[in-house]
């Protein structure tokens, strides 16, 4: 599947515009988060009431908030938070969802029926509503909000895996593998999973973006990351009170969410084009 791109090497990848732009935006978010581990222009948590509500200036590039904290530093540290949420939530979804999906497509019959109807059940509630319900049950907080988002990811991946898995199961090389005496477990691991990896990777990238957005929404509602840990969603929540006095407080975290989600979505689309050239629309 990779052969087309692999033949042309890294140079060939530059032809995929979505992949390049998305990859650069995503890399930028990752670098920012890593950099914030060792250096931020100011502390993201120390309050400095005297210098509150500063507009962007040379000292504070993106200004300061109502407690005088440096907005750039908070956004940088908030990037860590968003990445961790994305990685863990998507990790939960992939680990459990793909597992269930593979079982469903290997076993068929009532096992498949049960797993799929359970995912339908989960899908019946809007994502953010189920996340609110889960955080309401488990209590507000960063870890619980990650769990809530992760749980919502499970049926997404279960469905995708089962659907693409079923398509692989009906391929002739799987019949040939069965005729060679391989059991269902072996075929699942050796033939089905490797052939659907690209689909799962693409979905993971897109789910990552959704997870960042969901975390921002939960934090905005006060159910996610709790003070004093900076989070893009909570920065937005704080900012809405001062929307007219200090619009930069809303604009910069909003832009951070926008650019990282946009970057991941473009990366997902780009990866799909790179990994599966057959699906590419005319470019």
């Amino acid at each position, binding site marked *: *599947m990779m*052969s087309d791109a692999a033949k042309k090497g890294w140079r060939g990848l530059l032809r995929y515009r979505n992949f390049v732009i998305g990859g650069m935006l995503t890399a930028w978010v990752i670098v920012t988060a890593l950099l914030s581990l060792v250096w931020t222009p100011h502390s993201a948590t120390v309050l400095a009431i005297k210098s509150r509500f500063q507009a962007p200036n040379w000292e504070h590039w993106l200004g300061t908030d109502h407690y005088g904290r440096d907005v750039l530093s908070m956004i940088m540290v908030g990037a860590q938070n968003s990445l961790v949420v994305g990685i863990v939530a998507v990790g939960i979804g992939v680990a459990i969802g793909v597992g269930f999906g593979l079982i469903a497509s290997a076993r*068929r019959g009532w096992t498949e029926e049960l797993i799929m109807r359970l995912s339908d059940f989960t899908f019946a509630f809007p994502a953010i509503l189920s996340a609110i319900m889960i955080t309401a049950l488990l209590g507000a907080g960063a870890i619980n909000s990650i769990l809530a988002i992760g749980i919502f990811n499970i049926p997404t991946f279960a469905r995708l895996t089962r659907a693409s898995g079923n398509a692989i199961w009906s*391929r*002739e090389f799987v019949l*040939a593998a069965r*005729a*060679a*005496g391989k*059991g269902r477990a072996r075929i699942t691991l050796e033939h089905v999973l490797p052939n659907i990896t690209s689909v799962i990777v693409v979905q993971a990238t897109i789910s990552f973006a959704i997870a960042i957005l969901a975390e921002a929404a939960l934090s905005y509602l006060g159910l996610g990351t709790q003070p004093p840990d900076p989070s893009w969603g909570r920065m937005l929540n704080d900012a809405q009170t001062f929307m007219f006095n200090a619009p930069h407080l809303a604009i910069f975290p909003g832009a951070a969410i926008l650019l990282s989600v946009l970057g991941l979505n473009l990366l997902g689309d780009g990866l799909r084009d790179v990994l599966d050239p057959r699906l590419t629309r005319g470019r």
Partner: protein
Amino acid sequence: MSLLEVENLTVTLATSSGPARAVRNLSFTLDRGQSLGIVGESGCGKSMTSLALMRLLPENGVVEGRIEMDGESLMALSEEQMCGVRGNRIAMIFQEPMTSLNPLHTIGRQVTEPMILHQGLSLIEARAEAVRLLERVGIAGAARRLDAYPHQMSGGQRQRVMIAMALSCKPDVLIADEPTTALDVTIQGQILDLIADLVEETGMALILISHDLGVIAETVDRVMVMYGGAGVETGPTGAVFEHLAHPYTQGLFAAVPKLGGGRVTGGRTRLATIPGMVPELINLPAGCTFADRCPIVGDGCAGTAPPVEAIADDPDHRVACLRLDEALSGKVFAEAGS
């Protein structure tokens, strides 16, 4: 005791519009070194028969009857035990070499896997054996090709790889389901010769499924003609091709294009066809399934299922037709034998 004994094999597929009887009361036996050709048009149950033997029918398929290998019933085996039979004692070659290999795995991996799985060979032993097998099936530079991926090979080469895979565990029975249909004619001959040579060398039994009478005539000892899920005529290849007893067999032969003047009549060259359509498997007629397409259909045909009877001078050549005498006496289809 024969190597493979199949008696009253019946396959029923549950479909949304009712049960489809894909194979009905099929019986045959096969000894070591023997080859059986199953011939018939699309949808006559050829492939279902081979999948039933491997117990690889789709979820909605139900098998009845008796399938015994060396006196042991294959129907009684658990799925796990059956995995030990597939690829080991019964191997299969498929129609589409382009899609029968996993595109993500190397040729070497796919050929060695059955040997490692069934015979417990180490990877090194299996690779050495794979090189030998690939050389035997005529792949040049076999040692280098082990690390090639399927997309780097041609259709003919891939079919050779499939044959090498099928032979890797020295099976007792090889089922070849239209092994040459997807290949061009020059390659077809080579692949058929290869299969025939290998059958002779190894002493395994061969079931060759095809709709191509030429392929069948060249390769097998015995022929079974299938129509509407049932065997309508069976016998030694020579006898079947000589007598053409069943009206359907005659129609099948008449429909084969022939080179030269024999087919040109009145200045026009036309292929003979059998009028009508293959019967719906869901709604099979009570009597002979061929009745509504048969040119010599009689009063009893539609009502009574014809018994399978031996032709007078050859007890091994058996036909299911009520009006066998008429069928044998003349050219049922105008074109037959012209």
